[in-house]
């Protein structure tokens, strides 16, 4: 490398430092804090200089690296490993993953915390698979998916607390309600193009949340709904001391009472629900309506000219996606036993969309990997509560910049005209 290059990259790094100083100077360096009446400034120049220094150093290293014409190999190596997973390998991976998921609760290192995280990851996998129908297959960007999740959760909570019906009756009802809302939203907006659709669905998600907060008589407003019935094991509740005339799960099977029974049951419940979603998606992709979704994603005008009704096709995608969102919502409600509008903010929609897109739109395995990766990241940073969302957003940007098609790019149509081109 020539001396000129080094001086050049050094200058460039100093410029980066200047920009970094402008970025971090006021926002990080001058922290506002209320003291008595009014606000006061607490300077934090140390952190600013640290950040600026890091930026200069980082930029300088990147410059040196690119001057030597070598790319940063770390990330591309990391992602190319995933790209190597072809469909055949993905099948093996899927079988292994399912087997692992089935035995997971009985592994020696599995404790309550692991189970909770696993249930959370599975919930997101299910939501991701549900949204994958809308985003991945039909190519409609839905930024308000959490609305259907909320509708499912609230329908379950309201039906179960008002009528006292069991989980297994409420679950399909919640799905139907959510699907109904999907159609309700879908009808007017499906004529819109991609970006507009995204914003309108986002608006719809917010409308649902605002209604949940303000419709006090029905939803109990911001306080949420408490005392949602827990699911029972085919009529056997998970209680230490069952009510009069009832047998609880541990008594029926002659087991020592443990709270883990319920957790394990919930785990299998969401696992089965998620697998049903997956199975359904895999099957429907091979049916005419599934084919129409994918065709519509690739070229809407061609579809219209071939006699595919875009509105109906999109509506079915919306309704079915919403239905699975509703199922996941009722699972969420029964697991938490408490729901409030707090749980259904826009950030949830963003997380689910991120899972689908980062996984590689349309790829079922990708959703699993992305859920584990993203939820895992936020769990790892759990102790650094405030920083974990920064890490999360940063991961979204980085993956898009380095791997815009997602971890597992799978936009390959399910069927090709002239066989599989290999």
């Amino acid at each position, binding site marked *: 490398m020539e001396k000129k290059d080094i001086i050049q990259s050094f200058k460039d790094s100093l410029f980066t430092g200047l920009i970094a100083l402008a970025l971090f100077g*006021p*926002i*990080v360096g001058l922290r*506002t804090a209320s003291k008595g009446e009014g606000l006061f400034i607490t300077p934090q120049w140390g952190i600013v200089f640290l950040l600026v220094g890091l930026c200069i150093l980082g930029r300088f290293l990147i410059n040196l690296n690119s001057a030597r014409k070598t790319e940063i190999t770390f990330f591309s190596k990391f992602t190319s490993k995933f790209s190597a997973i072809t469909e055949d390998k993905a099948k093996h991976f899927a079988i292994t993953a399912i087997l692992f998921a089935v035995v997971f609760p009985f592994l020696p290192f599995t404790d309550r915390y692991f189970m909770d995280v696993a249930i959370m990851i599975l919930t997101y996998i299910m939501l991701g698979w549900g949204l994958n129908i809308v985003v991945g297959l039909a190519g409609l960007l839905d930024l308000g998916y959490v609305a259907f999740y909320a509708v499912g959760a609230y329908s379950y909570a309201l039906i179960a607390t008002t009528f006292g019906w069991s989980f297994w009756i409420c679950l399909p009802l919640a799905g139907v309600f959510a699907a109904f809302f999907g159609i309700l939203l879908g009808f007017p907006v499906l004529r819109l193009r991609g970006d507009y659709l995204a*914003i*309108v669905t986002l608006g719809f998600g917010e409308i649902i949340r605002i209604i949940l907060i303000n419709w006090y008589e029905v939803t109990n407003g911001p306080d949420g709904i408490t005392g949602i019935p827990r699911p029972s094991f085919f009529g056997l509740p998970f209680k230490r001391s069952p009510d009069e005339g009832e047998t609880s799960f541990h008594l029926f099977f002659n087991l020592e009472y443990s709270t883990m029974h319920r957790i394990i049951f919930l785990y299998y419940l969401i696992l089965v629900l998620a697998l049903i979603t997956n199975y359904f998606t895999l099957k429907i992709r091979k049916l005419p309506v599934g084919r129409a979704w994918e065709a519509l994603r690739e070229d809407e005008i061609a579809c219209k000219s071939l006699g595919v009704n875009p509105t109906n096709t999109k509506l079915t995608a919306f309704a079915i996606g919403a239905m699975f969102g509703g199922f996941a919502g009722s699972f969420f409600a029964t697991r938490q036993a408490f729901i409030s509008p707090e749980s259904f903010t826009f950030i949830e929609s963003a997380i689910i969309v991120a899972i689908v897109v980062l996984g590689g739109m349309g790829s079922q395995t990708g959703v699993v990997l992305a859920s584990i990766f993203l939820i895992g990241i936020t769990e790892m940073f759990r102790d650094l509560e405030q920083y974990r969302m*920064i890490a999360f957003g940063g991961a*979204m940007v980085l993956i898009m*910049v380095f791997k815009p098609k997602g971890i597992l790019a799978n936009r390959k149509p399910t069927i090709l005209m002239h066989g599989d081109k290999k």
Partner: protein
Amino acid sequence: MEYFIQQLVNGITLGSIYGLIAIGYTMVYGIIGMINFAHGDIFMIGAFVALISFIIFGLTGVALPVILLLVLLIAMLFTACYGWTVEKLAYKPLRGSFRLAPLISALGMSIVLQNYVQVAQGARVKPMQPLISGGLEFFKGSEFVVTVSYLQIFIVVLTIILMGIFTYLITKTDLGRAQRACEQDRTMTALLGINVDRTISITFIIGSSLASVAGMMFVLYYGVIDFYIGFLAGIKAFTAAVLGGIGSLPGAMLGGLLIGLIETFWAGYVSLEYKDVAAFSVLIVVLIFFPTGFLGKPDIEKV
């Protein structure tokens, strides 16, 4: 009637703020065809920079007009840096990628900015004493006295001045010509020797500066900000941009005014709780009946 006029005044003030943010959305959409989701958070950062500078200058005891001018310039400068950096880091590498990629990247950037400010400045709301007080009173004899505060006059006048400068910039200067050329055909513009990357960067800088002015107005008008204000304001401003016809600059201002008026009248006459629903419902209705907005060009799809 007096009540109506009061709401009208409030609505126009709010609409000015939305309009200034909406310009950033519509410019970026016009030039690179993406929804800059982080724009609302750029506005929030502008509000924070303005708040911090107000506190600093408040201690020095300089005359009020000087403070306002200085804060305006500082907020514009620092916020423009954010806009520029966001574009360089998150959008530029994705140019030419598939359609959803920049949107997801913008979503991630928005999450990063929000939480970054939350970490750096704390999650609590930041109150500020009103700087500009007093106002003109009308209809003094009647039951309802209409007050037009000096602050409202300041906001509307400043918006008009900025719009004037901005319109001149876009219609009369080389920069504006390059910007409009990029909107029409980026490849052709590049062939004619215009630095497209630089033009896009400048678009982001202009959009961010206008958003920062809106942020400063927001601090002055509401006197309270937190790290979350960018989300709702951003969505409403985007609604405004769509309402006026995305890509159209006068449309953004018109849409901003309409959204401001709709929100204020809804809050004044219908219900305060559902005022945010009003903006979203309007968005949905407008998109059904005028998919290109009021002043937008029809979008012709070519096979």
